[in-house]
């Protein structure tokens, strides 16, 4: 790195490389988003309300297209409460009507009552467009715990950035 300062060509190459890594990650995320038709195709479970099916920290892969069937009762969906940006993973327990205006009610398997209290004031049911992932198609345990740790203990972010910076500085190639 220090030697690279004296060699602008190498510094530029390194910068390009870094940009390439960033844009590849971004493209993969957006590509997955397009394929699954979900603004956030991968989510981390934040609460224990779906235990024992999903633990805190599990990584869920979402699918949000109505190809052959539409969202129905018993599916595990991820939704955002109106005007809030916190994804909630719960199960649909009732559905009244069909199509995009069908009224859906959700509940966490591990909760005693349904989600009416979680919804925005005046919102008694969800509709299709509140749902950002109509069905959880698969999941990987624990991997998402990293993000929970990082958001709950901000000092870890500093430590991680420090380690990464150190690696970049110490790397010879």
């Amino acid at each position, binding site marked *: 790195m220090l030697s690279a300062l004296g060699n602008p060509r190498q510094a530029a190459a390194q910068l390009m490389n870094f940009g390439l890594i960033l844009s590849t990650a971004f493209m993969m995320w957006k590509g997955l988003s397009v394929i699954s038709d979900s603004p956030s195709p991968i989510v981390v479970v934040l609460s*224990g309300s779906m*235990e*024992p*099916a999903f633990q805190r920290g599990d990584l869920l892969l979402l699918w949000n297209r109505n190809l052959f069937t539409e969202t129905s*009762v018993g599916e595990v969906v991820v939704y955002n409460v109106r005007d809030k940006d916190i994804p909630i993973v719960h199960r649909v327990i009732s559905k009244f009507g069909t*199509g995009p205006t069908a009224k859906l009610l959700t509940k966490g398997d591990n909760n005693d009552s349904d989600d009416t209290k979680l919804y925005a004031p005046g919102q008694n049911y969800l509709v299709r467009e509140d749902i950002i992932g109509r*069905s959880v198609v698969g999941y990987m345990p624990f991997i998402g715990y990293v993000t929970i740790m990082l958001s709950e203990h901000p000092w870890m972010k500093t430590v991680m950035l420090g380690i990464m910076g150190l690696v970049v500085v110490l790397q010879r190639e």
Partner: protein
Amino acid sequence: MYSSLVRLQNTFGFFTTVAFVVALLISASDFLSPRTPTVNVLKTTQLQTVKGRADYYSSKKEEYAIIKFTLDADLSSLFTWNTKQVFAYVTAEWPSAQNNNATNQAVIWDTIITAPSSDHLGNFSPSKLKRLRKSANGKGIDPSRGKLQLKNQRLKYPLTHPTGRLANTEDVQLKLHYNVQPWVGFLSWNQVQDWGKWKALKNGLSKKFTLPAIKVKEQAKKKTTRA
């Protein structure tokens, strides 16, 4: 080129590949074990429609159905080494009055059946956990938990409709569903058709019934209070 960082990266890369392949093989093994869920009995034993409020603070009176049902089903074939839990639920389903295509579906009862290997993850009381552990008797898979036997089971969730009207609803049917959650892989639900070794859930529907009118006695009482 061969710095320790590159070696570490390669090792980690290989580890993730192996883990992914093993996970894929495990989830594929699900298709090799046959699933033959059966329902022997699913019928209603009591029907009633009453008026009530959603909670103490709501002023709107809605009609609620009170249903008791009997269920005898065998889901034991759903338990394999990759089963984390089976979520079994009974819904009440009826067509909409205005539009025949629109349907209404509501879960009236559900249960989480954990595999012995995931008992510790459930939110059970210590006594229930102890009982579950004892019943499993050290086994990792316990198919006998898949036997559901309910007699005159009450509703777990209040059954109502957004319009608040439910009395005299026709063609209501109870239906048993299940959702298998694996340790690794994809979630699966009860099927309408056979897929290879996975057989469809037959007999999972009750006879069609009509919800009764609100009891006359209650209506009469109302008239007197209004007068």
